[in-house]
């Protein structure tokens, strides 16, 4: 099946210090960094600049090129549209800029969404770009994340490829029987095949699950499988440096605001 489970589009194989860091440390650092960013007052523009520098530094350590990050950050575009609409739509005092009447509150609100969402997204991209899905699940497990959540994540890992593989095979079978591959025509065949796709994916998922249980799977990813060991004190402190700086920036921003 194309891609494989861990060769997902968001993962960038490598051996940088970020890649080698234990997943639980990376997860905790990402969450802490995001909390610091979100709790920063929106008027503290300099603070967001500081966060951006931090993200850039981490990306450099992870050897992830800016272009790669930018392409994957495109997922954010719908929110950007909302951020750009706010200055026109929001109420309150207005400023005139280039002949347009813009709401001050809307401008700040739009900036708030844009800056915080972008920083949070970039931090998440750096996490998943350097951590395989399997290690993410192991990390969640080690952080004592409730088992049902990690199980759902494991099932996603299993079903994603199943769905992609099944739909590709069904498409090839449709084409072989003379289905017109042009976009609009394809939609009809695809829609008709959706129900069948669901059933086939479900049945295959069942068989994969049976096979996992036959090899002793009990609902948790076995610890021995993780490529990275449990986080050492050094790894924890290395990972903590980023959110620690972010927290310092956030506190400074709150105090000066």
């Amino acid at each position: 099946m194309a891609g494989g489970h861990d060769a997902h589009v968001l993962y960038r194989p490598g051996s940088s210090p970020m890649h080698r860091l234990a997943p639980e440390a990376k997860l905790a650092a990402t969450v802490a960094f995001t909390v610091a960013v979100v709790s920063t007052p929106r008027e503290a523009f300099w603070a967001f600049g500081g966060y951006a520098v931090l993200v850039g530094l981490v990306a450099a350590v992870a050897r992830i090129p800016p272009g790669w990050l930018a392409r994957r950050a495109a997922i954010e575009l719908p929110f950007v549209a909302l951020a750009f609409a706010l200055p026109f739509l929001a109420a309150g005092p207005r400023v005139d800029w280039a002949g347009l009447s813009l709401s001050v509150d809307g401008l700040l609100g739009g900036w708030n969404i844009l800056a915080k969402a972008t920083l949070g997204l970039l931090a998440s991209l750096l996490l998943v770009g350097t951590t395989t899905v399997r290690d993410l699940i192991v990390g969640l497990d080690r952080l004592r994340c409730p088992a049902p959540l990690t199980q759902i994540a494991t099932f996603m890992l299993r079903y994603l490829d199943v769905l992609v593989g099944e739909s590709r095979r069904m498409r090839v079978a449709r084409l072989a029987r003379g289905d017109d591959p042009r976009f609009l025509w394809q939609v009809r065949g695809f829609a008709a095949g959706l129900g069948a796709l669901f059933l086939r994916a479900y049945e295959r998922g069942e068989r994969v699950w049976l096979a996992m249980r036959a090899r002793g799977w009990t609902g948790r990813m076995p610890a021995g499988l993780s490529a990275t060991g449990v986080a050492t004190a050094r790894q924890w402190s290395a990972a903590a440096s980023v959110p620690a700086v972010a927290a310092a920036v956030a506190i400074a921003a709150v105090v000066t605001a």
Partner: protein
Amino acid sequence: MTGGTSHQPGSLVLRGVRYTYPDGQPALSGVDLTMAPGERVALLGPNGAGKTTLALHLAGILTGEGTVTVGGLTVDPADRAGLAEIRRRVGIVFQDPDDQLFLPTVAEDVAFGPANLGLRGEQLRSRVDGALAAVGMAEHRDRAPHHLSFGQKRRVAVAGVLAMHPELLVLDEPSSNLDPAARRELAQIVAGLPVTVLMVTHDLPYAYQLCPRSVIIDAGRIVADGPTGELLGDAELLARHRLELPYGFSVSPSVAA
């Protein structure tokens, strides 16, 4: 429980195994079967005879009425530790290797079973190396399973089960979709394994090649049990249960027996 061989590692005893699908359709209607340690037995039967359902009972994945005893340990769905031990003793190689291989590299997938048994580090690595060497796939350890040929995938699936050091190996349609060379290679691997083998198939020449003894299952019941050559020489018996040798083949009962 019977005495004698039933306590030896690798032995299998089924007594009155019955199972009904959730929709009320009977799948197994009282199966009795005894296998001695190290024996290789073919389980023959037409599609829908209950072969795969029976295989799932051996590892306690499905449980109905009756008893399944592997090396003296009886399957009890309420006994979690016992069930884990049963699944270590009974290794099932599923018909479709794509159902079984779900981790990003061959070595990791082979490690899944032993890691579930709690092995890690060097011990885990030596299990994986040993199992991959046993199926001649050691040089492919870091490849992605979906880049392998079908025959190689099946060998990896066998390795994934061998890595758990099973006493009883259950092969579900091991020869399906294999080209002649892959078929022969797999036969050589299976013939060289020091474990009890139950081979579920309707590939009669393959059963004849590998298993001195065969049982025929039809409509959820064992209808014949004897030396493979004798059963395959009885064209009428085969025809009654929707089995037949490929065109142009025949087994003379007197020669085979």
